[in-house]
């Protein structure tokens, strides 16, 4: 086989094939990027731009006015409480769903996803009906901060449960058995063996719940009363500002919310990284 004749033709097919593969990747990425830019990136950019449009002073003013500050404090405060509640109850629920067995368990398991399926405004309406002025059980917490926590608990309920369940399912019960054979009591086993292994799952769920709680609006508009300075969360405040013709002020506060959320999420992410350091050896 003549070397020169053999070489020339085959170089092109091989390179052409490689180039073909790269071209289709480029096209996919192109389509995806365009879509994402139009739908996600540009809106965010516009937001950040608008918040700074009138300069740093205007930004600061919009953010530091007492109503905005109160809304921010309320939102973060409520979100923290709700995340803590979720960590406890979510883990317990996941535990019961995985380790326990009772009639109707599968129905209960399915119902966990209700907050994902139900429109938030409907959720708010029914919470109002149940725990508001015409409550059949006599509990009226409408237009109070308790209502906010209640509504947020509803919408964030599935997150921790759903992130902890798979971890529990995969958890090697042999570890627990080994601990017990070495003399550990049930609570010790839970504290020293199970919980550390559940922590990454719990933290993942907590992050999702936090993000959701900070941005929630639909379930709050009806039941919280949105009393400025008292039960008005950031999302409602921003909505108000837009409707009163101050989009820049609204954008400023929105950016602060975004920034703070971002920092929080990073912090929890770092915590999760730290907690799973043993997995990386």
């Amino acid at each position: 086989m003549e070397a020169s004749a053999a070489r020339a033709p085959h170089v092109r097919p091989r390179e052409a094939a490689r180039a073909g593969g790269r071209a289709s990747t480029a096209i996919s990425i192109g389509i995806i990027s365009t879509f994402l830019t139009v739908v996600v990136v540009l809106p965010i950019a516009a937001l950040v731009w608008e918040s700074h449009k009138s300069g740093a002073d205007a930004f600061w003013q919009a953010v530091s006015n007492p109503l905005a500050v109160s809304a921010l404090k309320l939102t973060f405060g409520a979100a923290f409480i709700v995340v803590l509640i979720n960590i406890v109850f979510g883990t317990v629920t996941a535990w019961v769903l995985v380790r326990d067995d009772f009639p109707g368990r599968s129905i209960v398991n399915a119902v966990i996803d209700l907050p994902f399926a139900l429109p938030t405004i409907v959720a708010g309406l029914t919470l109002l009906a149940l725990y508001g002025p015409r409550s059949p059980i006599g509990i009226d917490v409408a237009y109070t901060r308790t209502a906010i926590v209640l509504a947020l608990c509803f919408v964030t309920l599935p997150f921790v449960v759903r992130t902890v369940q798979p971890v529990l399912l995969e958890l090697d019960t042999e570890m627990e058995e080994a601990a017990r054979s070495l003399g550990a009591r049930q609570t010790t086993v839970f504290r020293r063996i199970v919980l550390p292994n559940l922590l990454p799952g719990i933290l993942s769920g907590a992050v999702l719940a936090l993000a959701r709680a900070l941005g929630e609006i639909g379930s709050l508009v009806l039941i919280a009363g949105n009393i400025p300075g008292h039960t008005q969360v950031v999302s409602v405040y921003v909505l108000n500002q837009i409707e009163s013709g101050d989009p820049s002020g609204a954008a400023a506060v929105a950016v602060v919310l975004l920034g703070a959320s971002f920092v929080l999420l990073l912090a929890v992410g770092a915590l999760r990284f730290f907690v799973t350091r043993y997995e990386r050896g």
Partner: protein
Amino acid sequence: MSIEIRNVSKRFGSFVALDDVSLEIPQGSLTAVLGPSGSGKSTLLRIVAGLERPDSGEVFLSGEDATGIAPQRRDVGFVFQHYAAFKHMTVRDNVAFALTIRKRPKQEIRERVDELLALVQLQGFADRYPSRLSGGQRQRMALARALAAKPRVLLLDEPFGALDARVRAELRDWLRRLHEEVHVTTVFVTHDQEEAMEVADRVAVMDHGRLEQVGAPAELYDEPASEFVLRFVGDAVRLGSSLVRPHEIVLKRWPGDGAVEVEVERIAVLGADARVELVEGNGERLMARLRRDELEDLDLAQGEIVWASAEPFRRLAGDAKAGRPLGNLGRDVDAVDHGAAGAAAAEVD
């Protein structure tokens, strides 16, 4: 279809998978590519199939340069270690796939699938899904699937690696008989030297991306071209300063010329054979393989001192000295020493 691999090299990042490998595989042969993990054997197979592209070198199929051609146009059948079954299709649809996408008439497909299922003995399983088949059945299905479009080459990547010992033994047998029936050029990759020796006409031994030796199984066993091949293809133990096969070791109750003094540590009876674990004065351990009658003649017991020497497995007139001196092996096989006739003892260099 014959295969010629010419000077193929491939790296993955800084890892050299193949280093200037050249190999010829004649039409209709059943060749095994044998080597430990990381030796590059799977990479080589995948390059022949077109699933990987070499960094340099060429692959010729039936004399034509196929290096740049996509796998779907190479007319090769490929069987994966973990079957790669189309989980969402029935066995029938799996096997029919190659013909379905070539838009063959339904009747033709039906007949061919039935023929193949009979060949692999999965006739009753046509309408099952792969998840309801055992590992061995899935692999037979994968084989039938690969053969459906009558490929000119059949490539198998550790086809029995994921199966348990008994199924593996059955399928090995079965592959051999299939090859005798179908006669397509077949190359299979394995790390199991017994499998390679038992099934293949020719074995290519690879290590660390290089081709160590190619030849018939007996050739590899009797005339290893390197220490690696000696150790990898069949067992080798160190006796004194040379390497010998365990069954070439002869134990006597009196010292002889060049014999090594050893203590019997343990005797394991393995049916028709026995394995005797010995330890030299300097603490070196070695193992001898004896027949039962030999063992009984010696009447050995644990803790006894005996003398070990090596005898050639076969006595070639005037030829072949048993054992290979360590470190004295080159790539060509001319290291065979034409030593003492009817040698009964090793000559330790």
